[in-house]
């Protein structure tokens, strides 16, 4: 997808990755990679399209919930994690002004404090065990 294609068609279309988590993650990264372009070229419509795809079309916010655990962990200043794919979502959302995506992440976090806590506990224990893999 180039931004000129988007200009001419008003849309982009990626094949549905199905249920495989790895393929989903790959698509998520492809979509996230467009965010800096949308920001750089000052294309709010592209940014909005990306957010819609991530949040609504593919439901990545709820499909990959561990991102929230990771990002919260990073935000709390703990040197607990290498830069994991999931924390990148929040990083991208904030850096490239994808406010709707950032809001969706927050909303998920607010609705699921128990899961967030559980994920954090699991991660903390993995770190303590020194088995946290570099992702």
């Amino acid at each position: 997808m180039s931004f000129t294609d988007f200009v001419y068609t008003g849309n982009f279309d990626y094949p549905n990755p199905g249920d495989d988590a790895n393929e989903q993650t790959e698509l998520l990264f492809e979509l996230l990679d467009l965010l800096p372009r949308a920001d750089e070229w000052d294309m709010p419509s592209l940014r909005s399209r990306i957010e819609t795809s991530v949040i609504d079309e593919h439901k990545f916010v709820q499909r990959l919930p561990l991102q929230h655990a990771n990002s919260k962990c990073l935000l709390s200043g703990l040197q607990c994690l290498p830069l994991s794919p999931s924390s990148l979502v929040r990083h991208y959302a904030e850096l490239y002004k994808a406010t709707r995506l950032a809001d969706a992440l927050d909303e998920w976090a607010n609705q699921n404090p128990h899961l967030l806590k559980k994920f954090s506990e699991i991660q903390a224990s993995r770190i303590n065990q020194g088995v946290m893999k570099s992702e």
Partner: protein
Amino acid sequence: MAGEFLKKVSDEKLFLNVDDPNVDNWHGQWVSVNEIVLNLYYDFEEIKRVRTFLRSYETLLHATGCKSMNIKERTQTEDDVLSSFSRQTAVMKIFDEMRKQGELTDIAFVASFRNQSEDDEHVVMSDVEKERKLTMDPQVLRSEPLGVSVTSEEPKILGELEDLDSDSDSDSGRVLKVAVRRKKDPSGLQGPRPLDTATTDEEPKVAGAPGDVEADRMLKVGVRLRDDGGPQAKLKEELEPVAAVDEYSDTDTDIKPFLRAHRALLAAAIPYFRDRMKGWGDSRRRRLPFHGTDFGAKALLGEYLCTSSAVHH
């Protein structure tokens, strides 16, 4: 009532967490409610998602104290937002068809395999030797930036795409080589000279082919396809000027892939271009180097210019 009893045994592995009990192996699939979370899409370490069969007992699980991931369902309004994106207006469609046919385009994105100074129309040529091999590897590009400029002149380049498939040095897969050439401009005018393939009897030749004396400069673009089959194959480009570049003026290096577009449509959709195209200074320029755009944005466009089938060579 049952809930109160079940909550007391929340650590007991009472539930069979499988998709289809008739097909799936039951071994190791018995779980307690503390191990499972409703609405999860994937397992996360010791937290397991509730599989299809067990999900049909959701009410029972809730009564037992099973945790659930709360998700917000999309409202109708958001559905409308989503569908509105897939709308390509009639005008856009016409423009898009014209773009693909190369009709009435008045601007082109041109990949330039050299550094460009910010304020320059006169592009500074960097060390040719260093540019002999540029790859699209991000690390290399960081040190050897791929410039992308916009020109209001539409370059017409006689080119040939050939699958030479003969790079025996390559162990990484098929190599597609593109050779483009341009006839010498007798008028001495700077800039790319149109050379219409429809009005010439000459057949384009592969760069370096014997007898190809008319070509005053050639560029080979090799597209290396990693041989891992599927659509995820990564592309790696090697851009290799094959002629003695020093003999020619800087403007001759305009032999490169380019992407046609319509100024009006770009300006309508992208504030960046709207601003650039109305400026007095910029409007007199043949080239518009991109100011202040980040490396990634240029690299993306550059990569697209070099790999997309929609691009004109």
